[in-house]
């Protein structure tokens, strides 16, 4: 078998390999394949990380394109009218069209600058995923935790902290602060019981919301209707319903009828069915609804990433032993707050014994077998051997303080 395919000398091949080794460091190093498999598996969880900036990029491109289309077709129709104008008017019209086109051109240039930035962000994320390797894994994991925390803060509307954390850690390109600021406007307005920004957002994303069969806009309209009823502006309410609610009648007849009945019951009704519609918590509900629609639109998980990872981690770590009094501090489940979060989650399951030495905290296996003291307590070979060597063959059980001879120790076979 020849050393290479295209007849190059072995030497050049060797230099080539060292060059590539440098460019793909994650390939090499002393890593067991299980670790590497773990790494790839964990990278596959990063769908949202790539998807969100891409959706943003796509959205910008489409919006920019729509502007161009609209302007060009406006110019075209304006031109066809010009035929019937007098000469002076026609020249004037043509000149105004030219300046309009120039304006559009400028707009387009600004637009492509934004597009370029967003494309860079998408690429930065791809590069970040590619950079994950055995040699920088702890740093990479650290960044991941920060990304997860920023995601949580943004979803909880802690914008200042999110921005600060991203800035100090220099991960602005790896988190979606800009995108969430778009949501902030709408959420703030809903908190002040205003629907206009939310409606504008719905109009902006009309086609996508329609595709996912969202009824968020309908719910906003219902709320506005209810507010009109609350202020006893019945005529206004009916007018509003005719204009904005009627188009939804075919799909959501039942809800529509229910809300319409508020006209008869008014806001101080005692009837439970209608009373809830006037409660302020309806606004909180709308806010939640908006957050969900927003996340769905950008391809984000509906739950904060932090909660998802915490749940998975807690279930994997939860054992009955975590709740015992002598649980080690290193176990997160020794803390009340983590126990509280874990309480509705399932316990982990084990198919095989996993024994951790009380003294060294190392795993006991065939290399480092478990040894039994006469009192039934089990420690690892490594720990007892060391203890015996430095204490003239005597062993003190750290849990009962009993003293034994190293010769009294026997091996246990754990399968």
């Amino acid at each position, binding site marked *: 078998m020849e050393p290479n395919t295209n007849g190059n000398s072995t030497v050049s091949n060797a230099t080539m390999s060292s060059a590539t080794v440098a460019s793909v460091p994650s390939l090499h190093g002393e890593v067991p394949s299980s670790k590497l498999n773990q790494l790839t598996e964990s990278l596959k969880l990063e769908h949202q990380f790539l998807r969100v900036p891409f959706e943003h990029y796509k959205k910008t491109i489409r919006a920019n*394109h729509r502007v161009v289309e609209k302007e060009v077709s406006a110019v075209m129709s304006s031109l066809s009218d010009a035929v019937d104008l007098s000469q002076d008017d026609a020249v004037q019209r043509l000149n105004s069209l030219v300046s309009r086109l120039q304006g559009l051109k400028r707009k387009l240039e600004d637009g492509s600058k934004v597009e370029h930035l967003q494309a860079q962000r998408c690429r930065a994320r791809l590069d970040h995923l590619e950079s994950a390797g055995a040699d920088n894994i702890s740093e990479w994991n650290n960044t991941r935790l920060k990304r997860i925390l920023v995601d949580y803060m943004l979803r909880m509307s802690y914008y200042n902290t999110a921005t600060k954390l991203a800035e100090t850690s220099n991960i602005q390109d790896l988190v979606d602060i800009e995108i969430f600021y778009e949501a902030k406007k709408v959420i703030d307005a809903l908190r002040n019981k205003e629907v206009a920004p939310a409606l504008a957002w719905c109009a902006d994303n009309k086609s996508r919301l329609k595709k996912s069969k969202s009824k968020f806009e309908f719910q906003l309209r219902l709320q506005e209707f209810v507010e009109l009823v609350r202020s006893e502006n019945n005529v206004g309410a009916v007018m509003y319903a005719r204009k904005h609610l009627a188009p939804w009648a075919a799909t959501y007849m039942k809800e529509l009828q229910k809300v319409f009945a508020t006209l008869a019951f008014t806001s101080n009704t005692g009837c439970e069915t209608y009373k809830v519609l006037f409660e302020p918590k309806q606004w909180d509900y709308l806010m939640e609804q908006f957050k969900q629609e927003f996340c769905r639109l950008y391809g984000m998980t509906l739950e904060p990433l932090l909660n998802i990872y915490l749940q998975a981690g807690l279930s994997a770590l939860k054992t009955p032993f975590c709740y015992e009094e002598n649980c080690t501090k290193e176990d997160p489940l020794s803390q009340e707050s983590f126990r509280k979060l874990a309480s509705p989650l399932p316990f982990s399951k084990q198919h095989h014994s996993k024994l951790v030495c009380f003294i060294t905290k190392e*795993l006991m296996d065939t290399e480092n077998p478990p040894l039994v003291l006469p009192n039934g307590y089990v420690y690892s070979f490594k720990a007892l051997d060391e203890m015996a060597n430095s204490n003239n063959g005597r062993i003190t059980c750290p849990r009962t303080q009993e003293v034994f001879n190293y010769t009294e120790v026997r091996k246990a076979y754990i399968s």
Partner: protein
Amino acid sequence: MITLFLIAKTLHFSNFPNSIRKSTGQKLHPAPFPLDRHRRQQILSRKTISLKFLQESDQDHQALFILASIWIMELNSIKDAFDRVTKKQKISSSKSQETIQQITQEINDAISGIQSTDHKSILNELKAKLKEIAPLTQLESTQKELNIAFSKYTKLLEKQFNPDISKSYRNVDFDLHTVNQIIAGHLYREGLFEIGDCFINESNENDVIERKTHFLEMYKILESMKSRDLVPALNWAAANHENLQKNGSDIELKLHRLQFMEILQHGRRDEALKYARTHFSPFADHHLPEIQKLMACLLWAGKLESSPYSEFLSPTHWAKLGHELAQQFCNLIGESHQSPLSVTVAAGVQGLPTLLKLMNVMTGKKHEWQSMKQLPVPVDLDQEFQFHSIFVCPVSRDQAGEDNPPMLMSCGHVLCKQSITKLSKNNSTRPFKCPYCPTEVEVGQCRQLFF
């Protein structure tokens, strides 16, 4: 081994990315630009990978290379798809510019033409020309190509990644207050005090102040150490002398040693001797050899670098000791050494892929999942997440607990108490055969184990 050799051979001679895809049963994605940068890189890496592949003899490494190369190929194909998007976007963008330019040009031509001849005919001519250009159709066609690139990229992402990692999420009340407390604690323990304060402010949490003061002290000590000032660290160690000794830590001596070397390094031999006299003597009982070595350093003052003790000068001691101090500090204030939030999230990252796979086979049993008391499959975590000894009876597959403890049989094999009761048919005097060896065992001789 022969198969591996064959794989290596194919890797070497054939189109590497494709062949590896075939071997993993994946669809082929022929690259559309045969000679672009990525492609060249792929070809380059294909050779080196296959070469390396042949050189590596142990199986673990071979598996590693296959896995690593598959992942890199997948990422490359994703990058290619993204490049296609940006390329189409550029085409579409310049097309728009061009179209606008064209229309502007035609209109300008018309304006200059109008001055001389009948404006109506000029306008009609312009109209006809623009109709011929058909700007909207032109825009539409580039946009269509862009849309195709969009959806291809989105689909590729969906295929290569886990599109919904919340599938295994349990819809339970995840208390906001508790999560916020955990985050605030985490930020403080990582030394991000300003961000922690900001977080507390924004989230309206306020019972983490105590932890903050603890960690503030710790980071103050560590900061001083970074600028080679050991005084705060020594003060802390002296104040916690007894507790440190109880935990069997010799960090106090290590700090003194560092201080001693620092003095000596600056050539102040008398001062160093005085320092050693006052501070080393309390440790003489347990650390005599170490102290002897340190005293010997006095002889080499001024030329320590060339002494047999030059190792004491290594700057890594500072970093190591800083690390150890943080560990001991956390220990004394009753905190774990690592942030529990980092530990849990890291465990989650490792466990989540298994849970998601589980959800794939559990489709239709979503309801069951929400109420399950124990996971139906084991989730394997690294050793660093193993905080407890778990004994699983090899006969019954039950996890040992207080009511069913592990028992050591006279032959050295270990079973759960319930299994032993069953094997002995509940008769404590009747011997039974160990399921793993020929030994006859009596219940009376079995002893409970404590891990």
